[in-house]
């Protein structure tokens, strides 16, 4: 934006091509990143972002094309060489050892030694403290990583890269697990690093972040370079058009009339968690989509787990169709017609090594024939129907879940729960980390399910999406449900603010009254 740095070229990947078997992962893609610039690398899942980053990290060797780091040319990089040349990678799935301390992680495999050749723990801690001081963040180097908040872990990763004198920082979806406050800290740090002349490559699916932080955007689609321009030249619609390559659906398309009926299927009264307390009351009607907004740690996922029998309830009452129930286990929840699409699809949702069919079978084993044996034919039919209905892109139902992209993996998780034919579907961040195309499909599916008469509890941190898909939105703060908003209240009214902004303010304040 400022163009002030007008930095020299830190990374220059030119005409890179890479094939995996018959698939062109990259065709003559170039990526030029200058020092003192935050460079957004954008594209849907499968566009080639990961591949080009792997080439930059030295994990993959390109078939053709040239690589130059700080003006020095290489035919290919190795992970060691990339690190030596100052490429630092901050992983989406954090790569810290949870049982070691912050300082031990920062200097892992790179530990400073004492004169006697033993690891110098004190020096390590001092240097870690220095790095954190430079970053202007407060993290205790002697703390064990497992005890840190996600945001602090992310910052530790960055400290680790900086300790290795990284000149080029690659951040892949760095904010996906951060609270807004943590995002602010991260963005502040990125801006300072940029001012110091670091080159930063930033991968994210969140467009609002891109416009907030990036200077330049390179867009890939289907392994090709679509555009590389200063972000100032882009409008949101233009950028999304480049990423998706077709007419994009405005989120407001989803603002359809409500399919909610008068029949209350779920009534929650003063529900609190045994361990963490709280106070949640709401009712959910047949055919209704209830959005749940709130900051990270506001108790949204805990509510989902309590309703699904995964977290003990302290006090309060849950009524299903007017009848008071206790839900002691996921099995009981499933039998009562409740399903949960959990927050972390890779850890909680899927057996990654197992086939799509095997994953879909797990929660519906009881329905697959009454006998001891699995009714394979029925299972195949259900799997094929699910693949068709959710448009899961796969070669076969026997493909392992981890061969699919994030969006398609998420569809398997949704599909396996739809196969249980629930009355109430709870979805916890169902669109996190999936590309815009898949996101639109998920949102449309939610509306379609509601129209079929299912009731949906939709938890999300993306407010635009919440507004698009919900009939009403509940705002949570510190384990309590503090506000229930009708969507129409957000969309109408005389305020100058857009609906998301109004909602954001309520979320940030922890309720309208506050």
């Amino acid at each position, binding site marked *: 934006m400022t163009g002030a740095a007008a930095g020299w070229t830190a990374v220059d990947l030119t005409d890179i091509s890479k094939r995996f078997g018959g698939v062109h992962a990259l065709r003559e893609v170039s990526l030029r990143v200058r020092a003192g610039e935050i460079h957004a690398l954008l594209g849907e899942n499968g566009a080639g972002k990961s*591949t080009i980053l792997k080439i930059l990290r030295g994990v993959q060797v390109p078939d053709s094309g040239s690589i130059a780091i700080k003006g020095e040319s290489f035919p290919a990089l190795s992970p060691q060489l990339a690190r030596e040349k100052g490429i630092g990678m901050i992983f989406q799935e954090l790569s810290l050892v949870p049982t070691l301390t912050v300082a031990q992680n920062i200097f892992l495999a790179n530990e400073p030694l004492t004169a006697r050749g033993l690891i110098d723990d004190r020096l390590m801690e001092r240097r870690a403290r220095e790095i954190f001081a430079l970053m202007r963040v407060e993290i205790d180097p002697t703390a064990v990583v497992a005890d840190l908040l996600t945001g602090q872990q992310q910052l530790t990763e960055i400290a680790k890269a900086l300790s290795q004198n990284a000149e080029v920082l690659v951040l892949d979806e760095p904010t996906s697990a951060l609270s807004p406050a943590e995002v602010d800290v991260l963005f502040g740090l990125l801006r300072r690093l940029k001012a110091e002349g670091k080159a930063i490559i930033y991968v994210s699916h969140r467009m609002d972040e891109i416009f907030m932080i990036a200077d330049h955007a390179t867009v890939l689609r289907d392994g090709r370079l679509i555009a590389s321009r200063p972000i100032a030249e882009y409008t949101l619609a233009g950028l999304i058009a480049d990423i998706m390559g077709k007419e994009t659906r405005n989120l407001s398309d989803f603002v359809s009339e409500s399919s909610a009926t008068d029949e209350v299927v779920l009534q929650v009264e003063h529900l609190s968690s045994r361990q963490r307390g709280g106070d949640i009351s709401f009712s959910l009607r047949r055919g209704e989509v209830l959005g749940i907004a709130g900051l990270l740690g506001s108790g949204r996922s805990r509510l989902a787990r309590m309703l*699904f029998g995964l977290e003990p309830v302290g006090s309060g009452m849950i009524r299903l169709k007017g009848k008071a129930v206790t839900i002691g286990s996921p*099995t009981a929840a499933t039998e009562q017609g409740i399903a949960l699409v959990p927050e972390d699809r890779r850890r*909680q949702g899927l057996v990654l090594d197992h086939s799509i069919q095997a994953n879909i079978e797990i*929660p519906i084993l009881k329905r697959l024939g009454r006998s001891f044996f699995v009714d394979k034919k029925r299972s195949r039919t259900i799997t094929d129907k699910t693949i068709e209905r959710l448009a899961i892109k796969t*070669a*076969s139902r026997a493909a392992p879940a981890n061969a699919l992209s994030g969006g398609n993996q998420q569809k398997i998780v949704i599909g396996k729960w739809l196969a249980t034919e629930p009355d109430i579907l709870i979805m916890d961040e169902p669109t996190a980390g999936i590309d815009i195309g898949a996101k639109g499909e998920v949102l449309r599916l939610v509306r379609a399910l509601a129209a079929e008469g299912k009731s949906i509890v939709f938890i999300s941190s993306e407010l635009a999406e919440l507004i698009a898909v919900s009939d009403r939105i509940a705002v949570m703060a510190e384990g309590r449900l503090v506000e229930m908003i009708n969507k129409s209240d957000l969309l109408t009214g005389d305020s100058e603010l857009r609906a998301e902004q109004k909602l954001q303010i309520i979320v940030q304040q922890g309720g309208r009254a506050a």
Partner: protein
Amino acid sequence: MTETTAGTQRGESPLAYLKRTWRQNIIYIGFVVVFAFFAITLHDRGFLDPNNILNIARQTAIIAIMAVAMTLVLSSGEIDLSVGAVAGLASVNTALAIAWGGLPAGIAAGLLTGIAVGLVNGFLSTRLLIPTFLTTLAMMGVAKGAAMWISGTAAIPILDRTYPAIFGGGNLGPLPSLLVWMLAVGIIGHIVLLRTKFGRQVLAVGGNVMAARYSGIDTGRIKMAVIVISATTAALAGMLYAGRLQTGRFQLGEGDELSVIAAAVLGGTSLFGGKGTVVGSIIGALMIGVINNGLILMGLEYSQQLIARGAIIILAVALSQAGSKSGQG
């Protein structure tokens, strides 16, 4: 992100299929290769003699039976190190019970030994959350000690005539009854793991215990069941030893746990859970038996046999795992 998917692909020639999946099937290829190698090099020393082949089967059957249950245990992400010692304890209890109350008492005593040990192992692992590696390691010592104590370290003869005929001593038509036991346990195990709801749950628990829990599986119950099945099968193995040798003795089954785990892993079952094949485990056990037998016929000394056997097993496991690290994205 662009990787292709595994599984059978339409319009593929058998050769191409084999080329793509040979590493998964390495145990079968390996078994054929090893067998052919000994058949050719040792044809003049009676390797292919029907008696020798039956001998191999007889020696391997008990390991194979335990390997079937171990396949379930490993598939669920657990391990059972106590199988050998439990076999010894069951053989002692069976022999003593036969002397005291005849055949039914003997059979009941043997099986109850397994169920009891399994319940203890299972309780410690699923309720007190002690890893099975530790509970079964400790149980290995406890079971062996109990067997030594009860028997006064002496061999206890089985005088009943019917018992050995049923449990591993006699023949059923042309087949040694041990082989029949192996086939029966193998077929049941194969069907349980592959075709039943219980088997699906075992694999899901081993593949991702958290996802299994979120999917409504009672993971503790599944683990408990698998652990009890393993101990009971180990007890059955001990009863077969006792029948074959017409003796109950604490040393029976000693050290078998390693052969059993080796057979399962050799067959393609993952030590980390989520993946298991009963047929592979049985072939794995047979392969170890063939190697042992072949090396003896070749005239190798015991010390050399140990080294050669270790090298062959490592080679087979290395080949089967080298290609299984799937590239990520």
